[in-house]
């Protein structure tokens, strides 16, 4: 059974988030899910656009919805939590506030686009766990990750404010996914706490402190791996570990990866294919040391 979704990659996927893209495509291809790229998509506007002009922010994101509206499959999916939130919010606000919705629709119409409202924005995690299903995932597992102790990190915009398939404060979706891969999820009280997001660029002391707390707590709870869902969260948690060590004088280093990379590893895929070499915290021996050795031992 092939399932098809309209795919919105998002800007960061083209740069720092390349590995997220690579592993997502590889894993979904393996599971027989087709991702049909949205042609000529534009930036969703992220948090910054909303700060400057709300109408433009909604119109900007709505262009993508209008493009998706013409696609055969009205389910629009994206690997980036920020994009997921913005597209979702745009759609809901257009419905909830007809005044705004009408204006945005007029703007779209002026540019020759039409938005009917049939598009449904889905998170890739939702598709993996609910549409594909954990049973199907389990079938593809060739390398159960017995020794991996996972701190599942959902971040904020995946779950808030629109998550409808799990609890927003203490979700369990990744925990269940990790179990399906043979790994052990640990209790992780900070699983939905913000990593600082784009504040990393503007207020590094603040954002790094937030990441410090997350990394530290993951180790404290006995994890040897943080799984993240969003390219930005992953970037913050993965790339700044040396800075955090310097700033707070504590070694909080821990391997981090996208959940899709872990799924790929369990499926027996090559780390290179999954873009693992692009992660700052990736160390080629990790798999050998933490997972395979443990599994055979």
């Amino acid at each position, binding site marked *: 059974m092939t399932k098809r979704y309209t795919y919105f990659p998002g800007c960061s996927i083209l740069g720092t988030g390349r590995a997220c893209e690579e592993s997502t495509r590889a894993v979904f291809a393996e599971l027989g899910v087709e991702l049909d790229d949205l042609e000529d998509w534009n930036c969703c506007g992220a948090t910054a656009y909303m700060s400057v002009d709300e109408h433009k922010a909604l119109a900007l994101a709505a262009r993508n919805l209008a493009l998706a509206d013409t696609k055969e499959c009205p389910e629009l999916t994206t690997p980036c939590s920020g994009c997921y939130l913005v597209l979702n919010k745009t759609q809901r606000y257009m419905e909830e506030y007809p005044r705004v919705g009408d204006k945005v629709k007029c703007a779209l119409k002026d540019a020759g686009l039409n938005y009917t409202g049939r598009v449904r924005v889905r998170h890739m995690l939702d598709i993996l766990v609910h549409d594909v299903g954990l049973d199907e995932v389990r079938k593809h597992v060739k390398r159960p990750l017995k020794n991996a102790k996972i701190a599942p990190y959902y971040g904020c915009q995946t779950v808030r404010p629109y998550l409808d398939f799990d609890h927003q*404060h*203490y979700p369990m979706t990744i925990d269940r996914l990790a179990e399906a891969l043979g790994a052990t999820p640990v*209790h992780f*009280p*900070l699983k939905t706490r913000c990593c600082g997001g784009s504040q990393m660029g503007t207020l590094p002391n603040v954002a790094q402190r937030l990441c410090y*707390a997350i990394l530290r*707590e993951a180790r404290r709870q006995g994890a040897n791996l943080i799984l993240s869902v969003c390219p930005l969260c992953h970037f913050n948690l993965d790339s700044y570990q040396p800075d955090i060590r310097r700033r707070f004088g504590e070694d909080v280093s821990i391997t981090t990866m996208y959940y899709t990379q872990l799924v790929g590893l369990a499926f027996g895929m090559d780390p290179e294919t999954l873009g693992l070499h692009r992660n700052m915290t990736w160390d080629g021996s990790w798999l050998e040391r933490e997972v395979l050795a443990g599994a055979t031992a």
Partner: protein
Amino acid sequence: MTGIPNTDGNGRRGAAGEEIRIGFYVCHCGMNIASLVDVAAVAKEAAKLPHVIVSREYKYMCSDPGQEFIMQDIRENRLNRIVVAACSPNLHESTFRGAVARGGINPYFFQMVNIREHGSWVHTDAAAATAKAIDQVRAAVARVAKHRPLERRRMEVNQAVLIVGGGIAGITAALNLADAGKKVYLVEREPTIGGHMAKYDKTFPTLDCAACILTPKMSAVREHPNITLWTYSEVTKVDGHVGKFKVTVRRKPRYIDEETCVGCLECISACVFKTPKFEDEFNEGLGKRKPIYIPFPQAVPPLVTIDPETCLKFKTGKCKSPCETVCDRKAVDFSQTEKTEEIEVGAVIVATGFKAFDVTRLPIYGYGLYDNVYTALEVERMVTSSGPTGGEITLRDGRVPKSIGIIHCVGSRDKKTNRWCSRVCCMYSLKLAHLLREHTGADVYQFYIDMRCPGKGYDEFYERMLDEGVQMIRGRAAEVTDWTMSPEEEGKLVVRVEDTLAAYVRRIPVDMVVLSTGMEPAVGADEIRRMFNISCSTEGFFLEKHPKLAPVETATAGVFIAGCCQGPKDIPDTVAQAGAAAAQALALIDKGYVEMEPNTSYIDPDDCSGCKSCIPLCPYHAIAFDEGSKKAVINEALCTGCGTCVASCPSGSISQNLFEDDQIFSEIEEVLSHV
């Protein structure tokens, strides 16, 4: 039952030949009406209408002088119809009918026009509001000309009362009524009466022991000759109406003969399960019970119950049943089956109580995730000396807590869960703070949004807690977590909160968190509501007839409500309301009869073709087919006057008193006469 005929014998198509003389009165209601509606214009227009002899305006028509005008005009101007334009008929229709009757004419020669609630209070344009008032007056004048004299019906009232729910409300009401000599049926779903109150240790603000004040009342219920107590039973069907409700009660088998069991509890010790193994509902799961159990030692009736879900005899059929053999009175009876009882009562008091908020709906407070997060009800059981821990406050790992955080408003004042204030949580949280300090000496923090202590001695109690050193942090706890940032937080739960009065975000490490859960409508409240035809608010609490003036009556005559099924309240208020409900029920049945509005439907046998279309439409089965005459007949005693059959009769052969077709047609005609 006596049904008094409701027609005057003049026939239903208008009183014979009398001249119609209408008096019209418009009320200023101080400035409530007159500030927007031009009452003088209304009176002037009314004066021009057919049959109107007198048209007056007055400042307060409902006052004694206002009513006196009507009576005087009836006498002096030989009026025989009265129309008053004032407030809602729901408020003063009966007042004016009384005046009309005292004036010497039938009280149903009266029609009221609502120009306040439906007029001056909801409109802003004086001309439009006046025009509307005039139209409605015109309709009333046209209608009242077609009114006929009617009599209220009297019906005998059964002298028994049904009380649904055996908590403190049901118990209070039952004892009040039984002491007054009335027969009471008390039906309780659980194996024992006592309700939530039986689970509490001490009661605020006096800190008297709940059991000490409740258990004597429970025994009194059991011993009262006028009370029939059916526990482990549920109402399944209700028919009839005020004065004569027919109620079906399902009595679940407890596999113990109630007559012979004396409550020696030998059977429990004899059970093949040597140690209690199953979750004990009464102790909120903190303790364990056996398949054969008694909820708590002072349970009433003091009978054991066998739970077929856990009993081996039922599960496997292979138990030697030592319980059966040990009982020298042979009270254990595995062959027992469900029984149904049918009773007739004159009035009903519904006192089905509440359900504590399910804290798993708010995972942000970590219940179920962290061992040391408790609900208030669990802690209540824990501090009780007869509870599962014998009154010892220990955490699940056996430690005695040194610091405790009590979080208010869990499932209250929160639009995501329950919007309303549960009213008792502030006070019981303070009480628990006191008890917990008393038992453990721990530091206690209260996290509250607003401290609500209105009640006799309540604020004093709050002050006493402040004096005792309970720390009050004004802020809704944002989360409970075990994530730590500093050594002193290690191994503790951290409550993260903004102390809004200090304007700092604080992290308070505690050993134990208590969630002060709010109140929700009880499980099954919706079925009860449907059975007894009670309205409910959007939250699901039963709706009283009037929030101020009829707080224990419901929209259904003869059905009263008491306690938390009507809304969250504390024990004193519950008891007061239960007393009020008992008094109302008593007033109803002690009178011996009820008077009912005469707006019943009737069929003219000459007109009816016997098509039977109306028969299935009557929700009260008041219409029957007379096999002799081959016509439909309405039993007036059963008719409640909805008029559904009237609207449906395809040959127009059913009429409704006070809502005759021609009366309504003339209203339609008149409200549109100026279109």
